[in-house]
């Protein structure tokens, strides 16, 4: 097993175990403020005296599940629209592809900030916004693939024999699309995590959440953090964790791609 897979597994398991046992340590004040790392607080505490490791454990899962939900819904929407567009073709195809073009043509980050501001910065709205922005890429790849598969005689045969559309889609199109969809899913996941972190860093995330981006934001907001030794654990811990997560997902997608 590759180390990046172990890393991903650790984040998920740690989050799951932590949440399962009703962990509230990422919100509760458990020590003095700005403690250095010790046995009780391995990564020290922040300015409010909350344990940083607990925040890290909670924030990792938060990020991954945010990625899974937003990428999942984007893949779902993208594949449906891609199949409809490619299989039915004609005017519907033109229309759907135009919508795709419009969404991809807009500056994503700005749109994200705007939508985030309008919809409010909750976990759910974050997922919806991320999904809305990422489906067009999937739709395009799926559509191209569907156009290729559609030309096979067996599809014409199925159509002529009256096989219902849902059976044609689930039996003929989805199996060969599966590897494409998995790849798109993982790529979108890392993109979503990155975007959420960016938003949070800019202070546009859910202020009550303890995501890694929000931790970074809080740490950076501490006046003169670089003049104190606190940045070594308060700032670097979430940063390294985040970089490693993005890298791990990229490595995973690379492996699937080959």
């Amino acid at each position, binding site marked *: 097993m590759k180390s990046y897979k172990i890393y991903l597994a650790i984040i998920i398991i740690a989050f799951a175990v932590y949440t399962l046992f009703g962990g509230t340590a990422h919100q509760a004040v458990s020590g003095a403020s700005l403690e250095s790392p010790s046995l009780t607080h391995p990564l020290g505490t922040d300015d409010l005296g909350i344990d940083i490791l607990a925040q890290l454990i909670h924030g990792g899962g938060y990020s991954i599940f945010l990625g899974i939900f937003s990428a999942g819904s984007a893949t779902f929407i993208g594949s449906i629209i891609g199949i409809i567009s490619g299989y039915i073709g004609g005017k519907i195809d033109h229309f759907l592809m135009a919508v795709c073009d419009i969404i991809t043509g807009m500056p994503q980050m700005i749109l994200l900030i705007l939508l985030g501001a309008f919809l409010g910065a909750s976990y759910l709205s974050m997922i919806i916004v991320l999904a809305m922005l990422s489906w067009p890429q999937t739709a395009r790849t799926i559509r191209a693939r569907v156009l290729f598969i559609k030309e096979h005689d*067996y599809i014409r045969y199925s159509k002529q*024999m*009256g096989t219902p559309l849902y059976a044609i889609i689930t039996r003929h199109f989805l199996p060969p699309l599966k590897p494409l969809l998995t790849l798109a899913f993982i790529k979108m996941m890392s993109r979503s995590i990155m975007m959420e972190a960016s938003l949070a860093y800019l202070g546009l995330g859910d202020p009550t959440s303890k995501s890694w981006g929000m931790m970074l934001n809080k740490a950076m907001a501490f006046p003169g953090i670089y003049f104190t030794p606190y940045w070594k654990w308060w700032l670097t811990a979430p940063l390294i964790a985040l970089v490693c997560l993005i890298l791990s997902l990229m490595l995973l997608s690379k492996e699937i791609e080959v």
Partner: protein
Amino acid sequence: MQPPLLTIDALSIRYHKQPVNAVHPFNLQVIAGETIGIVGESGSGKSSIAHAIMGLLFDKATIEGTITFDGKTLMQPDWQTLRWRQIALVFQNASNVLNPMMKLSDQVAEPITTHLGLSKGRARQRAFQLLQDVGLDSTWWQAYPSQISGGMRQKVLIAMALACQPKLLIVDEPTMSLDPAAKHQVVALIQSLQEKYHFGLIVISHEMKIIQHMCSKVYVFYKGHHLEYGTLNDVLEKPRHPYTKGLIGASWELDAHRDIWGIPTSIRASAASGCPFYERCFQAKPACAQYDIKPLTIQQGHSVACQRGGIATLLNVQALQKNFHIRHHTINAVSNVSFEVKEGEVLAIIGTSGSGKSTLAHLIAGYETKDAGSITFENSPASPEDLMRRQGGLQLVTQDPAAALNSCWRIRDVLNEPLKWSLKMCEKKRHRLMRHVLHDVQLPSSESFLEKQVHALSGGEKQRLVLARALTMSPKLLIADEITAMLDPSNAANIVKLLKAMQNSHGFSMIFITHDLYLARKIADTALVLEHGKVVDYGPGPDVLTTRQDMLHHRPSNTLSSIS
């Protein structure tokens, strides 16, 4: 017109203690100097008819109907004077028809003394004359039957039959078990004798070549039923009864290039009543099982005893049109193409690549939509979707089996698709039919094979699977579009053989699309040549394919001519 020499009116023969007629009522007519042929498989009652005309069956069978000879309706006693003197029969050639203890000349002289009452000496004189007429060398005249060959024995039998200069001669299987040279001699002999003596001749044979050589009118019999009547050309060129077509298809002497196929012994369960050919017929309908055969009237000319009025038209394509628009050009892929496919017929569509063959197939099967034209199936307009989705409709087998099958599917899934979605069959029935069709196309039908994935199959196996999938719908018309194009010669030969065998045994019609003239010649009943989307030649297979010899010469030398 000459008055008929022999007229048979509604004659039927039933042997004593037999539940059914050996020969059902039929009509027949012979004019002096004319030759008619009676054809049929063994057991069709041909010999019974001969014996009835000879008046030999009165103590063995009940005979109804009338036989009029030379203007006189015959009663049982009349035959005493007519038999051998006026009506003679050349028996089927067999070693036991001659008396082994008697010299040949004496055997020929015997009927002359008994029937004409000539003296022994004069009779012998006449016997010598007859033996000379039939071309038997004088060295053999004193021989015993066991010393002569089959051909010679046939000549002696003809000499005996002609002993009393009959007005009507019946020849029962004159050439059976003779070699080709002897056959030819016997046929030529009978013809020259007929010219000399001007007798009416009835030839009974199952050999189409003999009938073709000798007869001007043909009566086709099956199981004692008279199924078709017509002049020689009508019957051989345009057979109207499926049975006649089958007989012709089984005669290799008629066309040297074609493959031969016997009439299948049984396509469906036999019917208790109705048409006798029902179980073997490729175009039987439920109504055929109730069809009551009426004797054919000879005066009508070419006539047929078939519930469907003869071989029916299955598919009729009129003025089919398809254009493709590529940028600013319009390509007439198919322009004004009309043709028809009869029941049980194999139509070969021949053309070079780009001639519109595949587009034509796709139009009929609905893979492409037509711009203009009409397609009728069994005389009613039908959409390709309906035809594809119903049993007894049409099915298409395309050239690339890899594209026709989803390679991720299991074999079970492939065969399931039409059964489940088009026929809405239950699981159990599907499974049974699946194994049945796999067996038909000579693929394993085991459970483990059904679970196999399509990509694990070879090209030949895939094509068989596509055929099996088409067969699940038991189509009346199968369109085979260059099905051997992607296969190696050996596999291709196997597939073509298999397909033709299934076509024969299941009785479906076929449109066989190919660029290979040799192959088309082997299997086609009719042929259509396409060039640039237009029909340039259309007609009976042998005619079209012989006139299209030139197409053969454009071919590279390493052709698939090995397919046979």
